[in-house]
């Protein structure tokens, strides 16, 4: 059996270990749920990006998950703005049988070099990433997941985003 000892490069000495032990976060075990959810999203994002033929040069929204499927199902450039919903007046219209998606569910709008997500008073709300609350509006970041009416979308900021 391999003998263990302190101070093995690059391990800590016993003194260093003792001094670090008092500095650790008291909730270091409690963070694991949030971290696990974040990691899951990063892995999913990576799978989706790998499945796309090329990384979009301009900002776009990728439909990645419906009620039953879990793969990139389509993408739309955002341009100056994009409205998503079931209604015919949405820029990206989804099947009418997606009852949990409102007619005009959410909109993404360009604001300078960034993009803003706004929930359009949808019935079932719009969620972002692991944030535990319905979003009214917020700035989007490259790699954000938007959950709306049983559908999941990945926001890609495009090159330089």
């Amino acid at each position, binding site marked *: 059996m391999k003998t*263990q*000892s*302190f*101070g*093995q*490069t*690059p*391990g*800590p000495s*016993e003194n*260093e*270990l*003792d001094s*670090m*032990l008092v*500095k*650790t*976060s*008291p*909730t*270091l*075990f*409690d963070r*694991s749920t949030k*971290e696990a959810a*974040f*990691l899951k999203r*990063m*892995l999913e*994002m*990576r799978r989706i*990006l*790998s499945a796309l033929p090329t*990384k979009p040069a301009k900002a776009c929204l990728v439909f990645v998950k419906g009620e039953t499927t879990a793969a990139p199902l389509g993408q739309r450039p955002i341009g100056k703005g994009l409205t998503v919903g079931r209604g015919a007046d949405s820029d990206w219209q989804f099947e009418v049988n997606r009852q949990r998606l409102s007619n005009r569910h959410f909109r993404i709008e360009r604001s300078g*070099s*960034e993009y803003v997500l706004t*929930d359009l008073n949808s019935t079932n*709300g719009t969620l972002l990433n692991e*944030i*535990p*609350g*319905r*979003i*009214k*509006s*917020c*700035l989007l*970041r*490259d*790699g*954000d997941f938007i959950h709306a009416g049983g559908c999941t979308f990945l926001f890609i900021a495009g090159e330089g985003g």
Partner: protein
Amino acid sequence: MPMGVSPPDDFESDEIRTRPTLLGKLSSDSNEDAWVRFYEMYQGVILSMARRWGLPETTAWDVLQEVMLAVNRISHSFSYDSEKRVFLANTAGAAVDEPVKRGGFRQWLFTVVKRTIWKHRYGTRRERELSFSDLSGSHDEKGLREYYDRTPSPDPSPDAITEEKAESDYRLSLLESAIRLLPECTKRSHPRKTAIFLALKQPHVFDSIAQTHSDLLPSGHMSEIRALYQLKANHHGELTKPVIMTHYSISSNHVDQEVKAIKLKLAAIFTDLRSGRDPREK
């Protein structure tokens, strides 16, 4: 193919580099284990650096997301020249004559992290400006409070963040990862050792675990921790070594040995993490 370059002058002083095989595995689309390992190794230090620069919690996670995306973008071009002991990377699809990222992977990574933090702290990056539509109906108030906590540290002193400080943050976050991995890396007989160690050496962590309603550790560990926490309550909040000796009917020397065994295990897990090895593989 990227052109080979000489190591930077201070490369040899960067005593440990991310394991070349891990970088190689990151470039494979199918190897998610490598990504999990990469995340476990670096997420703590990236978040810690962002927080120390005074970024609010939400923004610290944004920084982590941006850095993960940056690594994903560049991962397909990772290569390692074992002869020159140098990490090479080229941006995806970049022409041969484009600048080559060079040197230790951590060096490159921390440069990306600092640049991202700077962009949020001083640059043009706007804050998330989250607004919620149904705060009153939320059943997860704690989570919402966390996302609402957008107050930067009172004294971020970003200019005081030195390489040395980044290194010490990195080591602290590695230790926290090592503590989290303890239950997975120790034998079945270790729940008692772990509980004694936490009670005596990490009382702040011990109290936090015991006071949480959910099981943050495996059931065997939680049973020992809750039993010791009850013991602590019975002794007016004082859980001393003699109290533990009496509870388990063991000698002072035995308690010291149990604590030392866990500390040695932590040092070994720390060493593995720092070297890019998965301590759970042993």
